[in-house]
């Protein structure tokens, strides 16, 4: 009796025409394959999100070797827990980046490497002029613009937390504000950010 893996593979053959072409599968289908131990599917997810994951990790830990560790451990967490994904975690890309982010923050806190200037908005030429590159650049521009539209104190709290790896208590101390104020800035800022991203046409629907 065919199992889900065969089914998904069959879908791949039909759509892609080649047995090992995973490019047409949705992220969800890839995660389903990953949960069944399909390392090619993990590779495809890496091809889709490894670049972003690495950029994110490097931004946080500021060290190439540590950033690679964070990506490796984040994807290992994806591999280990892909079976738990569907019920509770929302979009696969959100989930994958959340796992990598958490590893990077753990590493930077442990290393006591610190951390985080305000985000550098200057575009830096990296990579080739591929479709993927263009898509990533467009995404980046949308998110950066949305960030710029946030009230400065909300933006500051969010950036220091997310890119700097600071805890909210550390932020309260660093910024000389009550903890409640920091929490409120992060909360209001994230909500507003989501609205701004939705207005800009980004898919920000929670499941």
């Amino acid at each position: 009796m065919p199992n889900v893996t065969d089914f998904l593979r069959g879908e791949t053959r039909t759509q892609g025409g080649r047995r090992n072409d995973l490019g047409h599968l949705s992220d969800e289908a890839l995660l389903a394959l990953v949960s069944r131990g399909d390392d090619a599917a993990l590779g495809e997810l890496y091809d889709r999100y490894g670049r972003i994951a690495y950029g994110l990790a490097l931004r946080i830990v500021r060290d190439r070797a540590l950033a690679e560790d964070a990506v490796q451990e984040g994807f290992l967490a994806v591999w280990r827990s892909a079976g738990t994904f569907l019920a509770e975690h929302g979009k696969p890309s959100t989930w994958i980046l959340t796992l990598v982010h958490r590893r990077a923050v753990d590493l930077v806190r442990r290393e006591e490497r610190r951390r985080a200037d305000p985000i550098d908005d200057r575009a830096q030429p990296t990579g080739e002029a591929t479709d993927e590159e263009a898509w990533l650049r467009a995404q980046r521009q949308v998110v950066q613009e949305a960030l710029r539209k946030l009230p400065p104190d909300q933006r500051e709290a969010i950036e220091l937390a997310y890119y700097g790896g600071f805890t909210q208590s550390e932020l309260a101390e660093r910024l000389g504000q009550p903890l409640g104020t920091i929490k409120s800035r992060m909360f209001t800022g994230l909500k507003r950010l989501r609205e701004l991203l939705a207005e800009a046409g980004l898919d920000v629907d929670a499941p």
Partner: protein
Amino acid sequence: MIHEQAAGFALDALDHDEAAEFERHLEICPSCEDELAVLRVAAAALAFAVDLPVPGQELRARVIDAATLVIPLRRRLQPLVAVAAVLAACAAIAIAVRPWGDGGPLGGMRRYTIEGARATLLVDRAGGAVLSVRRLPPPPTGRGYEVWVISGGSATPAGWLRGSLTALTRPVPPGASVAVSIEPRGGSRRPTGPILLRTETT
């Protein structure tokens, strides 16, 4: 109010205890769970705002290698893989680990914690071994961390540390030691650099 922790949790801005407390709360509070899902989407979008450096070519292989040592399926379990599955459970991987259900991979493993270093060695009955080492600084230029199996008074090379998980390239017989030293990239016939880690097995 615990509900106010949702944004901090979405941004990974809670400390360990706060995060654990909020996770427990999530299990009984559907409204926080819904709120978190929304906040997380916004938080993850921040990942797309960073610069786009190109990772090293070898990172993809590292990701796959690390994962395939930890195969989550019984049908694909082989001795070394079983070692890795246990190791992954022991290593500081901050995820909720589901029980395997069969209990299979746990049988017959020996675990050695290496004092003074964040390192763990796991050896299965057949001698297949995986070494987990955390927080080693990058080695000096042109050098790497070479793993040794020392048995009967002689040391044999057993691979290089890459990342935090390393499967030894040769079995660890009972009573042998496992050691790590800094060696030139080409490898050495016997340890020449300082021994950084060493553990005896039983």
